[in-house]
């Protein structure tokens, strides 16, 4: 028997392996367990929500989100501060450089008089 014939035979046997299968039977005392389950008080939506929030994945994801939002706010604030500082510096530099009011020795002497 060559390899392919052997494989065909095994495939056929596997396909027919559930022929004449018996029904699997439920575990004992199903009804007792079922009634106990039905008598158990059902959890409220709040309890479910609480359990969901307390899951490690949700906690870590929440913390990561808060940290990410904080980081973004800090980065944006820094950008805004540095850009506003530049603007003030530029505004001051322009009149200083192009000022046409020249302080003379006479003005300084007058200002220093008691």
């Amino acid at each position: 028997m060559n390899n392919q014939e052997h494989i065909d035979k095994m495939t056929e046997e596997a396909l027919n392996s559930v022929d004449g299968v018996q029904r699997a039977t439920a575990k004992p005392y199903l009804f007792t367990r079922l009634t106990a389950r039905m008598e158990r008080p059902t959890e409220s939506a709040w309890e479910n929500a609480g359990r969901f929030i307390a899951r490690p994945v949700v906690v870590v994801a929440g913390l990561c989100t808060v940290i990410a939002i904080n980081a973004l706010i800090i980065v944006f604030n820094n950008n805004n501060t540095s850009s506003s500082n530049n603007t003030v510096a530029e505004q001051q530099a322009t009149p200083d450089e192009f000022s046409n009011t020249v302080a003379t020795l006479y003005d300084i002497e007058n200002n220093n008089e008691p």
Partner: protein
Amino acid sequence: MNQPELVEQLQRGEASAFRKLVDEWQDMVYNTVVSIVQDPDDADDITQEVFVQVYQSVSSFKGESKFSTWLYRIALSKALDHEKKKRRKKRFGFVQSLFGGHEEEQLHPVDFDHPGVQLEKKEKAAVLFNALKQLPEKQRIAFTLHKLEGQGYQEIAEIMHTTLYAVESLMGRAKANLKKILDDYYHKNLADH
């Protein structure tokens, strides 16, 4: 007790009728569910869910189909829902395992050993059950109901809300696909050894 009578008693909320229902149908529900989910503990849990659902919604049963057909539909729907949840869990299993979850056991389940399979066929049946998991949902349902529950094509058509011709077609495709999956499996397996 015939089915309409049992249903009437259930709809009246008689506790003894519920016990009769569970006693009479528990193996049918369990066998269907365990053949789909391939895990005895999960199947036990889902079987209980099925009966809880039946108890809660029996008042809405109109008798348009047979009670057994309705019961099969609930069992299949619960089992397939469980499968979908398991697949979703598997997708996020890695992330969950990072945060202390013990999902690895579920990610690598052992071969399923159906208790009703004859001893000498157990090994081959385990290979078949693994192959069954790779079938499309409808083909899997049709094959399971026919081969493992012993349902005829007409009953399967009623359970699946489809035609007899569609069930025949589903069974044909299921067998062809299984043959291909098994052929690939044995090719790979025999080459490895």
